């Protein structure tokens, strides 16, 4: 037999006047005034993005080191793995995250291909050489591409070492003497291309077909390593500094990401090489718990046990107490079971009895303690 369920229809409670349209209009007005006032008084944070050109001009050595990492495969993006590439020159990917073999990152192949040596260095320099009729640069690119991998690595490693001692004079790299093959020509030209401001255009051309520029992947990824980390660190915006949780200026940031950002401050999330994957799935599980609160035994009773609702409905409880509505209620026992004592409820309603809290007001309610009331 289907168990009878006592419907706790809100319309059976005593009612009071209420104007939803007026409440909504007043609320919209208040929010509009507050928001417009804050916008007019404080504006909103905006710090211009860092361009390749700025870095090439202000720190040519760092720019050259970034380009070298892309060329010789020591850069983070060169060896990242899916969805950009499969590692560098046969080496396994270095940034693929995995929790006990669970690695959904790798399921889709390389839909956003990035070969840093080609895309960040050789291709832009080929374009530059052709655009400027620079036969010397073009032959340097061709010499590098034609050389065996071991030879390329020898030149690259010599250059990597040299860049740790390199200086910049008048915006140009000054390198110690060494065997760099064509790489010194390539890197000097790369720095010049960066300083000219045309480098980003070359990178953006690679990830967009035709005229329009929607996908800025390669442009964004060029500086993503040491350069942006250094700048972000100065602004307290790195992951371990609660980065994404706050804005870079004295404005409120996306504080609603606090639970997510918190994970990056504590082990195992803060120390695992799969920390991002772990954080993403931890938050997903927490979110699922939030959605399912009504059905999770224990969790769905917490609000009943904690007395916060006594504060929210304090006027109502005061009213029930003053009128003795509950102590004389025929559903007294059933009420304690959240109106689910079907037998008592049905029997009593058949006798024409009404729950105490549904009875018309015989005593006025205590004065409302708040100015606003709404139902959404």
């Amino acid at each position, binding site marked *: 037999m289907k168990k009878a369920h006592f419907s706790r229809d*809100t319309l059976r*409670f005593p*009612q009071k*006047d209420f*104007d*939803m*349209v007026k409440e*909504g209009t007043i*609320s919209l007005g*208040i929010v509009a005034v507050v928001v*417009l006032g804050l*916008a*007019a008084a*404080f504006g*909103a*944070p*905006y710090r211009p*993005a*860092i361009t390749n050109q700025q870095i090439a001009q202000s720190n040519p050595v760092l720019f050259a080191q970034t380009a070298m990492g892309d060329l010789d495969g020591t850069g983070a993006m060169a060896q990242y793995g*899916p*969805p950009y590439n499969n590692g560098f020159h046969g080496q396994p990917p270095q940034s693929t*995250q995995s929790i006990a073999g669970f690695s959904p*990152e790798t399921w889709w192949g390389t*839909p956003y291909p990035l070969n840093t040596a080609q895309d960040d260095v050789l291709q832009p320099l080929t374009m530059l050489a052709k655009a400027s009729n620079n036969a010397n640069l073009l032959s340097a690119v061709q010499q590098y591409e034609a050389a065996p991998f071991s030879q390329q690595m020898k030149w690259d490693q010599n250059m990597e070492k040299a860049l740790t001692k390199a200086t910049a004079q008048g915006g140009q790299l000054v390198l110690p003497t060494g065997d760099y093959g064509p790489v010194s020509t390539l890197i000097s030209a790369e720095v010049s291309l960066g300083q000219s401001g045309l480098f980003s255009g070359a990178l953006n051309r690679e990830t967009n077909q035709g005229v329009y520029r*929607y*996908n800025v992947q390669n442009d*964004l990824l060029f*500086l993503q390593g040491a350069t942006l980390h250094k*700048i*972000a660190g100065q602004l307290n915006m790195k*992951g371990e500094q609660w*980065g994404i949780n706050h804005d870079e200026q004295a404005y*409120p940031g*996306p504080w*609603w*990401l606090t639970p997510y950002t918190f994970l990056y401050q504590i082990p195992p999330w803060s120390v695992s090489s799969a920390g*991002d*994957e772990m954080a*993403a799935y931890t938050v*997903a599980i927490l979110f699922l718990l*939030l*959605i*399912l*609160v*009504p059905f999770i035994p224990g969790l769905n009773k917490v609000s009943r046990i*904690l007395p916060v609702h006594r504060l*929210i409905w304090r006027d*109502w*409880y005061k009213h029930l107490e003053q009128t003795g509505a509950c102590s004389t209620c025929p559903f007294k026992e059933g*009420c304690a079971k*959240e109106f689910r004592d079907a037998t008592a409820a049905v029997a009593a309603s058949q006798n024409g009895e009404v729950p105490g*809290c549904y009875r018309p007001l015989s005593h006025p*309610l205590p004065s*409302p303690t*708040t*100015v*606003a*009331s709404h*139902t*959404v």
Partner: protein
Amino acid sequence: MNWTRALRTKASEQLTWDDLLPSEQPVYVSSLVYSLGVLTLSSFVIVVASGVIMASKGALWYQTSSLGDFFRSIHFWSVQAFFFAMTMHLVAQFFMGGWREGRAFTWILGALLFGLSVVEAFTGYLSRGDFFSQWNQVQSKDAFNGAGVDGFLNVLNNGQIYGIHIAVLPLILLLFVGWHVLEVRRKGVVPPYQAKVSK
């Protein structure tokens, strides 16, 4: 079964004008917490309105002109107001057990709205076009990739992020907000927990 007639019957029974535009409320509706939902909705209206104006002028406008900057500020602060009111609303509904007496689906829609809003706000931060966008775009790629979302989303593709921010998620949010409000109106506000009966 006639689907049209069934829908009409259900709607006319469960969504009367008294439900949709009530001029009375149960007497227990007497607290500031009942304003948090409508404050969330009010903020949402301003978020959408300022967002539509910004979208109609284009992304460069709100980065380069003073008027665009002002509308971006309105968008920024209304988002803060929206999240503040929504979070307080969520917390209050938790303490009130807002899912009780057949209202679980209303809670589920509300929780989904919170999650969707977080993603919507994040795509907005990435569409700001400044250093915050740049840094968080390259940082968050590892999280999106690691979670396996890379099959669908290239977080470094601004065209995709901007499209998701101004069309895909707003449409889903509008649908869910409307549904959430209809559910609240259909069921009415959750009654208080039972008072402690003194023996």
